[in-house]
């Protein structure tokens, strides 16, 4: 079989491998809805969203932050959000002195306020620094949300997370693809709660 034909034959296999994980997102609809409501309440109370992850999930942290700060849909309000992967001086500085496990926890201690939301992303749920970040966030009183995959890993089991959203795959590429849909939906549905006056309590939006 020629190279091109064998590559062509691999695409339907790659497509099929993604289907069940994509469909399984529907099974997370209740968890997504609850997370969106709690996030909307935090934004309404003046909280900001702080996002973190390693490797490819670090790029997702940036994507989530820009999604909230600069919405692609005209007319949606900007909401405060930041990624903890932006500053290589701080990330490498903390990693060098305190260890890589502390890179997100350190920044959360310095930057987070109690009404904030911590969103940790880890494809297998085993990232120690993401777990540390969420644990410190919980201590500080933040709402904690995790996007994980597989069996949820240590992050999913750790008990420091208010909302664990799981992409049902063990392939990190497929997990990431489901995570992208998850955070797009989180962004969109947080705004649905904003558009329903009276649901978010009497606090005044900043």
């Amino acid at each position, binding site marked *: 079989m020629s*190279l*091109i*034909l*064998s*590559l*062509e034959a*691999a*695409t*339907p296999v*790659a*497509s099929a491998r*993604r*289907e069940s994980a*994509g*469909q399984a*997102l*529907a099974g*997370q*609809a*209740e968890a*997504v*809805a*609850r997370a*969106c*409501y709690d996030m909307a309440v935090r934004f309404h109370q003046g909280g900001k969203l702080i996002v973190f992850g390693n*490797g*490819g999930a*670090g*790029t*997702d942290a*940036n*994507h989530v932050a*820009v*999604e909230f700060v*600069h919405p*692609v*849909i005209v007319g949606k309000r900007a909401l405060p959000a930041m990624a903890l992967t932006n500053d290589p001086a701080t990330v490498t500085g903390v990693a060098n002195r305190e260890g890589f496990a502390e890179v997100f926890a350190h920044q959360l201690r310095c930057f987070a306020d109690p009404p904030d939301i911590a969103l940790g992303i880890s494809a297998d749920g085993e990232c120690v620094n993401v777990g540390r970040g969420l644990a410190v966030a919980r201590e500080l009183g933040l709402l904690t949300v995790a996007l994980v995959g597989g069996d949820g890993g240590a992050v999913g089991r750790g008990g420091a997370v208010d909302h664990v959203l799981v992409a049902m795959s063990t392939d*990190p*590429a*497929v997990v*990431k*693809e489901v995570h*992208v*849909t998850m955070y*797009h*939906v989180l962004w*969109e*549905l947080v705004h*649905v*709660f904003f558009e*329903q*006056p*009276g*649901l978010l309590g*009497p*606090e*005044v939006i900043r």
Partner: protein
Amino acid sequence: MTENPHPAGVQALYPFLYADARADLDSVLTQVRESTVAKAAEIVELRKVVLAREAPRLAACAAAMAARFAAGGRLYTFGNGGSSTDAAEVATTYLHPSSGRTLPALSLTNDVAVMTALSNDIGFDVVFARQLAALGRSRDIAFGLSTSGGSTNVVRAFEEANRRGMLTVGLSGYAGGKMAELDSIDYLFVIPSPSVHRIQEAQTTVYHVLWELTQQALGATDERAATAAV
């Protein structure tokens, strides 16, 4: 003392905002749940349609990318906003893969000094093109993403890359935008969706599958080389 921002008078004027808040919450939660289910179905379908339609071109593109890597080429990735995070993901997927061969790749939004210098001194339209002019060689690959297909700096980068003989790969959405009108893109994958979010999600799948196929093609190349060497 904090003033109550919703005095009794306001509550009397708009009782539905307060008395029925719980009932409203339940109905909004239901609406939000249904929205998630609908969007999950939408992206599953879009992914299937795109991969089925593009399978032959994905194979050809991956073979061409593998040939460039085998010849010592590097991959340069670029995009704006959310697409810049995808460009970073594409680069790290090749450079530090979960499995398979490590391949040289660089995202052109990484260097804040270069980005701001070019934007300040010349203009934002050249931030990627000028970096390709400095870094790119004819055996390299330029990989640009734009949901609209209309980002001027992405278009300019493809024109520069094409002038230099680089292999050019583009991802866009809707009907392809300006990128679909260019002769400078060797392989353009257009995601036919009206939603910028679904476009980005399907683009993520397309570049992951391209990476998988490129790895497979390089494996095949290695096998052939090993056979030839025996």
